[in-house]
């Protein structure tokens, strides 16, 4: 298990390889469809994303005794942000993107060029991931976009992920797909022959 703690420098990020199991400690910013489109349209983020981590997540957040508390925080499907992600990595100096399901070629290339990684969280693990969130530090654009789409600043501790796109041009998604497609071809060729 690799520990990845703030600050998230380019050097630390470039040392990660696909397949690494990582626990993140530090600050992450949630961002999903509305924020990605909004940044892509050229709006300036209300908080600097430089050397930051974006988490594709629409958390369920409740106010308890005047404090924000996250009650569920699993990843959402990342591929929806594929048209916007590469530009945001480049322009804002984002160092890592957390989500689920993987991303495409544009993002893979941006990760390689600008020193960023894609970290796959376990889809559906809403409770485990909520437990790894120790504190809600702030929230931005809450009125404008509503709770799931706002930028939440979350302090996380030992937040579990797997590196599936690294900063060296590798993608675990591509590798597994190629491998399983070979296995499939073999299995298909056997069908009806037994």
């Amino acid at each position, binding site marked *: 298990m690799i520990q990845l703690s703030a600050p998230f420098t380019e050097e630390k990020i470039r040392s990660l390889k696909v*397949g690494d*199991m990582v626990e993140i400690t530090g600050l992450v910013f949630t961002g999903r469809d509305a924020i990605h489109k909004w940044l892509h349209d050229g709006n300036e983020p209300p908080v600097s994303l430089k050397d930051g981590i974006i988490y594709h997540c*629409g*958390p*369920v957040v409740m106010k308890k005794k005047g404090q924000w508390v996250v*009650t*569920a*925080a*699993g990843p959402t*499907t990342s591929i929806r942000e594929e048209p916007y992600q590469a530009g945001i990595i480049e322009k804002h100096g984002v160092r890592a993107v957390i989500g*689920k*399901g*993987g991303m495409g070629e544009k993002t893979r290339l941006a990760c390689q060029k600008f020193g960023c990684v894609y970290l*796959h969280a*376990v*889809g*559906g*693990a*809403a*409770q*485990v991931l909520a*437990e790894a969130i120790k504190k809600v530090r702030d929230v931005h654009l809450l009125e404008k976009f509503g709770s799931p789409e706002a930028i939440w600043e979350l302090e996380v501790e030992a937040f*579990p992920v*797997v590196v*599936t796109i690294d900063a060296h041009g590798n993608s*675990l*998604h591509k590798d*597994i*797909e190629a*491998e*399983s*497609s070979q*296995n*499939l071809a073999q*299995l*298909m060729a056997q*069908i*009806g022959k037994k």
Partner: protein
Amino acid sequence: MTSSLQKKLQETFIEIIRKTSAELPQDVVDAVVEGLEREAKESRGEYALKIIQKNIELAKKKSQPLCQDTGSILFYVHYPRKLDGELLGKVVKKAVVAATKKGYLRQNSVDSLTGQNNGTNVGPGTPTLHIEPWKKDHIEVKLMLKGGGCENVGAQYSLPDSRIGAGRDLNGVKKCILDAVQQAQGKGCGPGVLGVTIGGDRATGYLATKEQFLRKMKDKNPNPVLAKLEDECLNEANQLGIGPMGFGGKTTLMGVKVGALNRLPASYFVSVSYMCWAYRRQGAKVSARGEIQKWLY
């Protein structure tokens, strides 16, 4: 139906929703554990399954939704003839609204034209309610919550299919099933379970795939031909190497359930639904007085 019975039934339905959203049935938990034991130590597959296992325990302990996508709400209800079925359907919907308010269900039903979410989970087509009278004098309620991520990777094939070389026979069906798993990769939050229908039309085929998910993981298909097909497909899909979450590994699927419907001579559909690891299904035997007598899973 007296208003006090309606109230009691509504409470009962809310409890069924809560339990379904927060607790996986034991047969599914057992399948997750089996997968965990199968994966190599210190592998990514084992890592993902350990997190899943911990999530299952935490959700149950905290009585919170297992996954924040509480999914499509599918009810299967049988009721004694003396009850008013129409009214019972209304009580189910009221329970859905109340369970959403309590946070057991996410506000998950969006108007497809305006994009608006009225926050109640009730609207055209939601929740899905299959409700039928029967001769017995108790009510049986089965409920399934099926996430959007896994619903998106379902697939329907019209045979013959030249892309995958599938003809109109069981070998062709098998090719469809394996191809669907390959296409899904890890996107359906695997390890998953497949519900498959051979035959039917496009609508009845998919409808019946969902009913396959009402079966228990370890049950045996009463049709020996289908039982054999299920075993073979499960075994072969797990040779693809996709693994939990698509991270690679031995547990790509936890189960395959297949049913067959008659078809028109002109059509031969194979419909495949994918259920994620967050396989939320519960059921209860409910007395005519509205009390839960027994959990079914």
